[in-house]
């Protein structure tokens, strides 16, 4: 049980994020929810990298036989963080535009006007 605590933290982060997306109507809060899910998944990847008594996977010379944490999940996390930045930037850009058009951030009130064009 004690060894599952990191995963429980991961799941808590993801569920809080999902809750924010599904039940909150403020667009900024939805964006925050998505970044929360993202950090949950990133945390999951990082926890997968850990081995007991391990060091960072970086050599300082020619030492051998060290237990090192796994490098691949680190690389995956790096990639997924950058992707997260990109997604967040784009979402915030769209939120700014939505606010300019509708003067509100309430998801219920946007996109309701007639078909003008």
């Amino acid at each position, binding site marked *: 049980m004690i060894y599952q605590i990191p995963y429980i933290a991961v799941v808590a982060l993801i569920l809080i994020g999902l809750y924010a997306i599904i039940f909150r109507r403020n667009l900024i809060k939805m964006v925050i929810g998505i970044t929360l899910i993202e950090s949950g998944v990133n945390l999951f990847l990082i926890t997968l990298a850990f081995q007991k008594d391990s060091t960072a996977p970086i050599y300082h010379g020619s030492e051998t036989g060290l237990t090192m944490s796994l*490098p*691949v999940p680190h690389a995956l996390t790096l990639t997924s963080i950058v992707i997260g930045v990109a997604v967040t930037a784009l979402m915030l850009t769209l939120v700014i535009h939505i606010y300019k058009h509708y003067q509100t951030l309430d998801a219920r009130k946007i996109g309701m006007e007639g078909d003008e064009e």
Partner: protein
Amino acid sequence: MSLRNSVAVIFFLLIAIFFVFSAFITHPFGEFNNENSPEMDQYIIDNTQNETGADNGVTSVVFDYRGFDTLGEATVLFTAVAGVIILFRRLKK
């Protein structure tokens, strides 16, 4: 409660059950045994200095073993920049 809300609640609970279950049956934190021994990562740890010359195992994964992912990642950032600039462009010529 409206229909939309109850659908949302059901969806949320379903996903929540999936995630909570997965938290309890993932292998214990930091412990590896024969069944899930990290062969691929051990290979990288063992060979990063000899094959790529990089002391930093993570960098050797990022730029050598999984370099194509990094190209994709750089592309994602490029895409985001292009997207942000295109969305804030001047609309009139």
